[in-house]
């Protein structure tokens, strides 16, 4: 029998917090600023794009305490059970001085108006703890989710490069107190289900995955929240009523990554950041793609399962997973079924998920050694931008140089992530030559009728999508000349 408690418990900076009054849609930022008068964290956009509200959240992953930057504006308080929240107010250096990150920012003129600055400091703090002497690429990656309108970033970069000369990570309070905090968080994770509120203001934090499955079977239209990078905006932007909310980001049973027989299985609660490590090693082309999903804070919160389950036609993981032939496991109660991922997406806003059912895991085949795989994302701004069009390609050539098989899937080109079957058919069995590719490029109109919106016109989507096939071909041919523009040269 699952124990139930009626309060959310977490650590806030140096303080134990237990809240029995929490609205299901109460954001961490509102909690900090309004309830606690901790006003160092700012609201710049309330949608997880600008990073002015960045705080660190520490949580136990396989028993190890990991701190990650998150956007407090779209993080719900209800999702913080068993976590350590660290805000800008908690930063301090030795003997009353500024923290090394802060002092470097001061000395290198990293702030002008200062409004975004606490967020930058927190992002750099998170980076510094993991990587005290980061390369520029790592700094830029850590700052993808932080907008500054004044400095042009150059001064912030100078500061970021210098932080390690201001102090040692080992002396940082979070490092010093790591064991104590780990112990506290371990105690907070008591295996209880948390239920708070009544009627239209309810939130539930399941004890484990089985508990979650049973809650889904009994609740009417619950809102499942993992990373809240999407649902957060339903609240802050659309003021939607999301009760009852079931928080699942903490469920260890959904946070596993395993590999067996060339199949990487990713639990639905695995974040982009957590998936990156395995996927970028096993399927290297996915590394740079995942690096361009949201900003660091969003990747630390958002989950692979959420990216699939929300059914968006512009999610970044479904097209490459479909091209790779991934399958999806859905669970209802104790019953599971596994379907090809592409069949999950039925139409815009409609997925093959029954009431009470949830996405449990996605299984991604590692491409065979003799195949060629690539995924390309097209956006207005290179990083932290939502896809205009995304193409993924998996090619296997026969010994005679003809196309034995090719799977092509796109996002942003239709109401769902979708295969380019006419293009595939035009290529299959043909010699893998530029002429064949050019012929296949004429087939896109049979597969796609893209829309015009604020991200791109239909004409551009079509043209760029077609040209991605040419890029794929060119890259498969090797050669010295660059095929893509690159921000950082691969070492």
């Amino acid at each position, binding site marked *: 029998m699952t124990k139930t408690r009626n309060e959310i418990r977490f650590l806030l900076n140096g303080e134990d917090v237990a809240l029995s009054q929490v609205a299901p849609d109460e954001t961490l930022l509102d909690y900090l600023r309004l309830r606690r008068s901790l*006003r*160092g964290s*700012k*609201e*710049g*956009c309330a*949608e997880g*794009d*600008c990073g*002015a509200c960045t705080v660190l959240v520490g949580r136990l992953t396989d028993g190890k305490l990991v701190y990650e930057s998150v956007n407090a504006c779209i993080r719900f308080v209800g999702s913080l059970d068993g976590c350590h929240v660290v*805000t800008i107010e908690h*930063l301090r250096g030795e003997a009353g001085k500024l923290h090394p990150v*802060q002092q470097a*920012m*001061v000395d290198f*003129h*990293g702030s*002008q*108006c*200062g*409004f*975004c*600055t*606490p967020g930058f*400091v927190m992002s750099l703090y998170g980076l510094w703890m993991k990587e005290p002497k980061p390369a520029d690429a790592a700094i*830029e*990656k850590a*700052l993808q989710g*932080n*907008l*500054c*309108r*004044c*400095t*042009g*970033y*150059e001064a*912030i970069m100078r500061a970021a490069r210098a932080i390690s000369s201001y102090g040692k990570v080992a002396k940082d309070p979070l490092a010093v107190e790591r064991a104590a905090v780990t112990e506290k968080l371990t105690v907070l994770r008591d295996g209880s289900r948390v239920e708070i509120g009544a009627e239209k203001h309810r939130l539930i934090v399941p004890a484990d995955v089985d508990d979650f499955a049973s809650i889904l079977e009994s609740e009417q239209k619950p809102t499942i929240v993992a990373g809240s990078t999407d649902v957060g905006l339903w609240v*802050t932007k659309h*003021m939607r009523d999301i009760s009852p909310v079931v928080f699942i980001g903490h469920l260890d049973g959904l946070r596993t990554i395993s590999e067996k027989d060339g199949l990487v299985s990713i639990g639905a609660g695995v974040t982009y950041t957590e998936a990156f490590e395995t996927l970028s090693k096993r399927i290297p082309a996915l590394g740079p793609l995942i690096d361009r999903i949201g900003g660091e804070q969003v990747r630390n919160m958002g989950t692979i399962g959420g990216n699939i389950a929300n059914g968006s036609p512009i999610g970044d993981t479904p097209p490459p997973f479909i091209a790779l032939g991934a399958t999806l496991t859905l669970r209802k109660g104790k019953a599971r079924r596994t379907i090809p991922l592409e069949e999950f997406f039925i139409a815009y806003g409609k997925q093959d998920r029954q009431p009470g059912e949830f996405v449990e895991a996605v299984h991604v085949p590692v491409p065979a050694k003799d195949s060629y795989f690539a995924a390309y994302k*097209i956006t*207005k*701004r290179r*990083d932290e931008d*939502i896809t*205009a069009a995304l193409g993924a390609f998996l090619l296997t050539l026969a010994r005679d140089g003809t196309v034995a098989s090719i799977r092509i899937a796109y996002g942003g080109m239709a109401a769902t992530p979708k295969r380019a079957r006419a293009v595939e058919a035009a290529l299959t069995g043909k010699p893998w030559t530029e002429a064949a590719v050019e012929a296949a490029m004429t087939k896109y109109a049979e597969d796609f009728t893209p829309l015009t919106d*604020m*991200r*791109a*016109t239909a004409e*551009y989507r079509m*043209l*760029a999508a077609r040209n991605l096939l040419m*890029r794929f071909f060119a890259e498969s041919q090797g050669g010295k*000349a*660059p095929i*893509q*523009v*690159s*921000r950082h040269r691969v070492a």
Partner: protein
Amino acid sequence: MNKHASPNLKAAKIAGGVHTDQRHDSAHKHVAGTAVYIDDMPEPAGTLHVGIGLSSVAHGKLKSVDLSAVRSAPGVVDVLTHADVPGENDVSPSGMHDDPVFAEGKVQFHGQPIFAVIAETREQGRSAARLAKIEYEELPGIFDIWNLDPEKDKQVTTPLTLTRGDAAAAIAAAPHRIKNRMKLGGQDHFYLEGQVSLAIPGEDDEVIVYCSTQGPSETQHLVAHVLGVPSHAVTVEVRRMGGGFGGKETQANQCAAIAAIAAKKHGRAVKIRLDRDEDMTATGKRHDFAIDYEVGFDDEGNILGVDFMFALNAGFSADLSGPVGDRALFHCDNAYFYPHVHAKSAPLYTNTVSNTAFRGFGGPQGMVGAERVIDEVAFAVGKDPLEIRKLNFYDPMGAEGERNVTPYHQKVEDNIIHRIVAELAESADYAGRRRTIDAFNANSRFIKRGMALTPVKFGISFTKTESNQAGALVHVYNDGSVHMNHGGTEMGQGLHLKVAQVVAEEFQIDLDRVKITATTTAKVPNTAPTAASSGADLNGMAAQDAARQIRKRLTDFAAEKYQVPTDQVVFLPNRVRIGNQEIGFNELVKQAYLNRIQLSAAGFYKTPKIHWDRAKGRGHAFYYYAYGAACSEVSIDTLTGEYVVERTDILHDTGRSLNRAIDIGQVEGGFIQGMGWLTTEELVWDDKGRLRTHAPSTYKIPLASDRPKIFNVALTDWSQAYEPTIHRSKAVGEPPLPHGMSVLHALSDAVASVADHKICPRLDAPATPERVLMAVERLKAEAAGK
């Protein structure tokens, strides 16, 4: 840093005088989260909050406005409409009476405020605002200017014409003529701190408004106007803004007015803070322009005559569109001499949000027009655009020639663009890299490189003459510490720091003895907005004036008390030499106080020399010019239009900089902001006139990873202001922004490579990857013979 340490009485120099690198005065608070912005201030007990009700159609009559559900929603205290405005329902900054606080009878753009919910919490106010039932009789709307006739269609205010010589005849007689049009997009300010005001009611008709505004005096006057009270009843205060960029020059006034109305009506403090989407939807932006140009030139590429029409999208009201259009014309020459020129502006009415000031204030748009013309000429005569630029520069300072008169008949007397461009071309190795790029392109099928070097000449002064005045208030307390106040506002640019350096320099005391205080209309009245890059020029002078008055009194006092001539009273670092003895500054101040010497002074400054006759289009519109140049190199992907900026070098002139560290930050930040404007920042309206890019998820300002991979910024170490500005420094707020043009032209250069540099790419802005790819496709098709 121990602020209470005794001053060093043996120092050779003060700590923190002018021409020294100092950190932003609030940096240590920025990084700690302890710098207080309006929304961070502790609210008075009982503070109410505002949710704003916006129009859901772009143009229409208000048939019925049913707010009953709003009023009965939880936490709602009141709902304000135009009927609740005690004074005039208008916040027009230009006296045009065309900017209602709340729409009355009709709405003129999607997102126009119609009502304000006053509620116990902000969330309750926002939720309730969505319950309004409003019926509109929709009217046809104009949502862009591309198909408007700048000569005939409705304008929001009087346009400007500049004429020198006979452009039509010169163009007609020229060996070559080109006529075309450029589309140039607008830009959202995207200050990280959105519009916010906190109004606290006082006795009688008084109210104090804490407002994130660049123009506290104007906010004060408009709040008084809206409340129907004298200006003396209203105090506006701002310690700092979380970014402004022109977006809080006039756009802060509406929120301030709403908060003040509600505060006076209910006798409670009222705070309004717009959500990001509301802010982007309901407040004005940089104007988008349609630039029609015709240029006549000779075989060498000498420009003989130019005719410009600068049509700008004013939106539904005048706001500052008149002067923005004017400044576009003032900069349609950039750094080039036009022997014959005719240029007109057309601030066109549309059913979109009323566009406003944005760093550069039309100037960058004018310069972009000039650079397009240069490109056209360069491609037509088959030369590197840099050659055409150099060929057409104004004469250098000191030259005897006549190629130094602007289209508004001001003589350019301080031109240093030749030296700047020469030094930059050298340090950036323009010629060598040009060869490298050509070789790269010859061997690269899909990726093409491009490079451009663009100059900047930016006119410094408000063209509205009365704005070129400033006041300051300086107190010296009897312990020798100094309280400094002036009319300028801090939005991150380090203005307060620079002015404090000026005051420290005058008194010869360490910078930490000078207290920076919030800008308030109660201390310095009738100030200009902090805009037009004028902050340090104007307020530095006013503060210097105040400090000098006090120093003179101290000098006279010391001379009398110690019986020495005044020229034997010398202010040394933290001390004063009087005859043969030295005493601490603090000691002298103490003695002066005991002898009843006034230790407070109001300072004042007005810019000399300038005048401007708008009707005639003639005058000495600018006190001086700031110069600079930028060289950028890009790579583009001809399959997708994606690009990266490989390298940017900038050499910029800030005269004898008051604080190079601050100025470098302005140049770096200004460039990136200008680059964003011309590349990824795209405002998209749909066919109903709704802005679709109203949040950072859809509106893309540059990130750290959009910086040039190599980014070299330098200030000229040899220039000084030609006029006696504050310590011969030059303004730096706006002039670096147009350096972003170097990226647009580098992209254009890369695009041109697909047609062997034979066809002018006419790359419009913002040059998103989509526009780059479409330009590549167009040039490939044209090169192939269509």
